[in-house]
């Protein structure tokens, strides 16, 4: 990207998918790791090791929630280290990738 560092900061993007019931626990955990910004999308459906989940299916009451958070690399490591012991219980998935934060909005990472 030709854009200068006054415009973009290199950061990490963490994307977590878990069952909706665990969302409160996950958010509490994120807060305990001093996360200051995240985005939640729900309900989401999907397929995973525990079978299919469909928000349209009114009889099984199983949904997922997607949590996206952008933070600096140091903070990302901390978040991942905080999450790791619980990931087995949460199930779902947790992805990390590189991204660049466009400077402008109030700092919330």
């Amino acid at each position: 990207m030709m854009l200068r560092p006054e415009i973009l900061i290199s950061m990490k993007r963490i994307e977590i998918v878990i069952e909706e019931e665990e969302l409160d626990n996950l958010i509490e955990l994120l807060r305990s790791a001093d996360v200051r910004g995240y985005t939640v999308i729900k309900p989401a459906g999907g397929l995973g090791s525990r079978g299919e989940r469909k928000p349209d299916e009114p009889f099984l009451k199983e949904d997922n929630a997607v949590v996206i958070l952008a933070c600096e690399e140091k903070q990302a490591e901390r978040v991942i280290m905080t999450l790791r012991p619980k990931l087995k219980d949460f199930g779902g998935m947790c992805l990390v990738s590189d991204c660049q934060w466009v400077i402008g909005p109030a700092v919330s990472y």
Partner: protein
Amino acid sequence: MSVSSLLVPAILFFALGMFACVIKSDLKFPPDMHKMIVIYLLIGIGLHGGKALSSSNMGDALPAVWAALAFGIGLPIIAYIILRVIGKIDPLNAAAISAHYGSVSAGTYMTAVAFLGGIGVTYEAYPVIMLAIMESPAIMIGLVLAGYSRKIMGGAQKQDKGMYKHLLLEAFTNGSILLLFGSMAIGAVVSDTSYKKIEPFFETIFMGALCIFLADMGMEAGKRLSEFKTVGVFLVGFGIVMPLIGAFFGLLLGHYYLGYSVGGVTLVTVLAASCSYIAVPPAMRLAIPEANPSFYLTLSLGCTFPFNVVIGIPSYYAAAQYLAGQ
């Protein structure tokens, strides 16, 4: 019994929903609509039942409680044995399916009430208690059968205790059951003047709202028809035979043990013949994640519910009439 008794609007709307699904219409009700109507119907049924109970002798309700527990515990065991011995179904799927047959379907119950209302038949106040009671024991029997299945499979008792506790609690804090019991209690304590004020919403327009619910259920049932292949001939057959077995015991207990009128026996029979799709499926999903949900949902929504709604109810009524010697 004439054909016209089948022409209850609720049943016709069920057929319309199924038809829409079969011809692949794009008709679709918003998912929240389903939830909202279920909430409304459960409260309505509870209030009505509570009101009726408040003017009945509560002591006389006890036999209904025993009957409910007998169905809730007995029918899943019968179902499990049939599935294992005759169907050679694997233990965990058998356990999950069985649990559903100990429980009841509020939708079938309400359709039966609409059916009786349509032909002007009265009934006792007690069957609604059975409706409220029967979800919980079925969930617990499901847990027991799952535990037994895991043992005979020789597998490690993987189930952690936390989950058992969670599910036992769930059997009592389940939203639908709570709504039903809560409204029943409210219906029982409020004064007649107060009840009159809420009657137009919860009783007068109830039967119409039920039509929309059944149209929706028809579409849900229709969706499952396409899974008959995966489920297999034996299970589809089971989904029609098992309600008949339940109905047999329902007729016996309703007529000989409870001594109800034709209307009351019909309702008891419907409870015994019907199978849950509200509280039990999510409980089994959690308790027996190894079981295939499309098995129990297809049986419950695609076979037993349509069978009961379209063929079962009038037949059970005819049988109840026969027993009563009418």
